[in-house]
């Protein structure tokens, strides 16, 4: 089964930390991150922006820092617009089990199996 990522959901908490879900498989191919869920074998393809967020989602860096340091320098976009778009995106990815969201930074290695 395959699917595509769609539409924004609800706004996030003021400070959000994102980490990669340990339940998925992932590999970058031609600038896009391929993600497969082990639970239902759904295959996702993240676009360039989502791939940047995925790669930076270490659980310790806030989404705002990711947007400011990774997204804005890469694309000519103002930080607030970029942040709103990123909020929508990570909410969506979290609902699909690809990312995990937290209002607190991870204290230790967050990708253990």
């Amino acid at each position, binding site marked *: 089964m*395959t*699917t*595509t990522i769609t539409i924004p959901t609800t706004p996030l908490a003021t400070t959000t930390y994102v980490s990669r879900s*340990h*339940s*998925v*498989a*992932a*590999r*970058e*191919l*031609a600038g896009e991150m*391929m993600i*497969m869920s*082990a*639970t239902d*074998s759904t*295959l*996702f*393809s993240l676009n360039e922006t989502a791939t940047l967020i995925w790669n930076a989602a270490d659980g310790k860096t806030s989404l705002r820092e990711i947007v400011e340091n990774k997204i804005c320098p890469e694309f000519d976009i103002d930080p607030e617009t970029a942040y709103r778009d990123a909020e929508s995106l990570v909410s969506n990815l979290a609902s699909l089990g690809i990312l995990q969201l937290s209002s607190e930074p991870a204290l230790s290695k967050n*990708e253990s*199996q």
Partner: protein
Amino acid sequence: MSLITDLNRKALERGVPLSIHLDVTYRCNERCEHCYLEHDGDGEMSTAEIKSTLDQLAAAGVFFLTISGGEPLIRPDIFEIIEYARSLRFNVKLKTNAILIREREARRLRELNVEQVQISVYSHRAQVHDGISKVPGSLARTIRGIRLLKAHGLKVTIANVLMKGNLDDAEGVRQLAKEIGAHYTLDPTITPMMNGDSSLLALRITSDSLRTVFTDSTLVGNVEEFCAPPTAIDEDTLEGYPCSAGHTAAYVSPWGDVYPCVQFPLTCGNVLEQNFSDIWKNSSQFNEVRAIRGKHLTTCNSCSHLGSCTRCPGLAWMEGNMRGPSTADCEKSFIRTNIPTANMLQRGYTDAQAFAVSHDTLPQPQLRGATRTLVQIQPAR
């Protein structure tokens, strides 16, 4: 275009080895009568060597990793290996006989997010299954393992290798899979041993039996479609690749030898001596395999079945020519459609029935090699 098709296309265009089959051991706790492996012999990589291999595979872009054997769970470090593979974010599929899977193992495989487990079941009757595996009680232990895996939420595929000894039990295994909630695949392919011993071919089901399988809608779905005559050969078919072996897929043996496929044991290098990416990109063997297009296939390039045949380049290589026909697949194409292949006609099989009489008349493998899966049938669900 579906994402998986797009993924394969991108990998092909960029020369990325998307899928790897890694056998971590040839040792096994069963002695299945149709097995193509010798269970002793050329050694195994250490835990550290396998981890290093996995690092190399991840760096090369491998996404789908099948861990198999032998029986992989016979290695005491198997969970360390799988855990390491998952930490590198491979999509991991495990092939096992499930004999060693108990509560702890099933739970651990689920925790590690193994995507799928494939398990061979030869019959729903212990007498038949255990007779093939040569291990009394193996069916009961295998089914116990499958149920535990299912209880922990893992996806299980029951692979039913079909041979003369279990020919009547395919429906029983299919019903068993349905009852357990496992996927079911049927594979009527028996191949020579790696040491070239072709005596196993005597276990193959007869052509008449294969015809019965190919016309069973519960196994093949739409029979008319499955058995449809081949379409005309077009330019795309002539310029196309025979299969993914060496293009987006490869095999790594327990001692690090790299082949295009487990079914195509042409040694292209060894990961203990040379980086995998270097082997993948630069070995003369891989480059030779990759250079082959449909139009380069001797005999097959003039065969009406070229676009729809399951021709295995590994089996063709074992018959002596990687550009030549794979006779077992010629037979399958003929049995599906009742239309003789170019190989059959060239060999003088102008009468269709004459081809179907005996495997003894077919060429025997001349080179060291092994195969397992040529035609896997996914029944209609």
